[in-house]
């Protein structure tokens, strides 16, 4: 859907974009306490300046009639956004549902750091991989609890 908004990206840009979409999603969905703890364990953190101070606002969510049809406005969600710039130039954005300013700022800082090739692998290992695992574990747990409530219906066949 992004393609209609901007010119078609090259294969390299697409891969880079997909990578960024993935880590930004993980950073946004992560539990703040998990992100904060992993952040605090990082051995070295660059300095940054806040380009846009954490700001709380809303995004309107939409549904589609029948799940697939005409769009309609369902209601808004609270969102906090923030933009930071690292001392060596990279700009990172944080867009995080809810009103936790620190969460948005850390998400922006990690987004900026991940755009720095020399830092990426270490950061993926230190922050993104463990957060992804936690999210997947929690999703799996909810899913397994739901699966335990699966109904097995029997239709009674009369006679033979």
């Amino acid at each position, binding site marked *: 859907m992004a393609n209609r908004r901007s010119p078609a990206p090259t294969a390299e840009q697409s891969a880079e974009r997909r990578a960024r979409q993935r880590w930004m999603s993980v950073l946004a*969905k992560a539990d703040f306490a998990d992100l904060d703890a992993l952040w605090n364990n990082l051995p070295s953190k660059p300095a940054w300046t806040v380009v846009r101070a954490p700001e709380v606002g809303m995004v309107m969510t939409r549904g589609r009639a029948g799940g697939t049809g005409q769009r*309609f406005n369902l209601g808004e969600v609270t969102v906090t956004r923030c933009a930071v710039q690292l001392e060596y130039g990279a700009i990172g954005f944080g867009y995080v549902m809810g009103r936790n300013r620190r969460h948005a700022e850390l998400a922006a800082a990690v987004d900026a750091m991940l755009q720095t090739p020399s830092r990426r692998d270490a950061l993926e290992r230190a922050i993104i991989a463990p957060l992804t695992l936690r999210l997947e574990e929690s999703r799996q747990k909810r899913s397994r609890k739901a699966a335990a409530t*699966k109904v097995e219906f029997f239709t009674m066949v009369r006679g033979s």
Partner: protein
Amino acid sequence: MYVAVKGGDQAIENSQKLLAEERRGDPRVPELTLAQIREQMSLAVDRVMTEGSLYDPELAALAIKQARGDLVEAIFLLRAYRTTLPRFGIGEPIDTAAMAVRRRISATYKDLPGGQLLGASFDYTHRLLDFALAAGDERPVAEIAPEGVEPGMPHVADILNHEGLIEAEEPDADDAPVFDLTRESPRYPADRAARLQNLARGDEGWLLGLGYSTQRGYGNNHPFAGEIRVGEVAVEFAPEELGFPIEIGEITVTECQMVNQFKGSANVPPQFTRGYGLTFGHCERKAMAMALVDRALRADEFAEPIEAPAQDEEFVMAHSDNVEASGFVQHLKLPHYVDFQAELVTVRALRRKAGLAVDGPDSAVPDAAE
């Protein structure tokens, strides 16, 4: 006519102090925390978010606490708060087919792909008060299956759609405007987008009563609960500065697809028709009622006679908002002394004209606006 009155400042201040004290209740009882409300009154939180039109469980919990559990008052508080926030933009439509499903039932297909998942439901409880809860110290443990829910759970409507037995729901053009009642005044006739937004934030009781009325014959459209599903979907948003969509979090939603009796025409063979309900959180009764009313409001589209209240879009939509309804009903409590004085003068004049003796005001009770 409404004429402002002055005075009563001290009384109002003291009333608010009394309200705060009564909200707190007996100080020997521990104070409720927002986390307790969010976790243990979660369906109240979901209703307040849905009708307050703002997904934020913490804020909904605060509103419920402040409103002493009066959910319509809490919805009002949340609506008022949302007007203080800027809107960063509009998200991509949520994809309910990609939902991480925690509950999914169908009253039309026994063995549908992906199966029926009861999830957490009151449906099969006995509705007997559980005195073990009164004792406290509850530590329930849910069963955990060895495997999760099968991925890829098609909508029931897709199964019917495959056979052409149900009307297709085709997307509108991506650049077509979508009516937003928080920015525009309602217009009648309204389009489906305007109706669905109105119903999504409409009062649950109002929709429940209207939905029930359709089942009792006032605009009956023979519904089946084709599918109800509850679970988490990603919220995607494309910030301008990025130029591509990113996931900014997850929300829980409830979706209801009603399958209703056929319609056909010279060009289209008979097909099932559809009603749709969607809410924030787990608001199943609301989603079902919304789907019934959505279908009833499509009477015009299917050339059905509009005879019942639930089919009358202006009647349904203009009275669905409990913040507006509550405000207008409750404004009757405010001083109307001058209006009432005018009525007193009129009724005395009419009685005099009819030849009745009129004593004039009782000197012991001052007249309304004196």
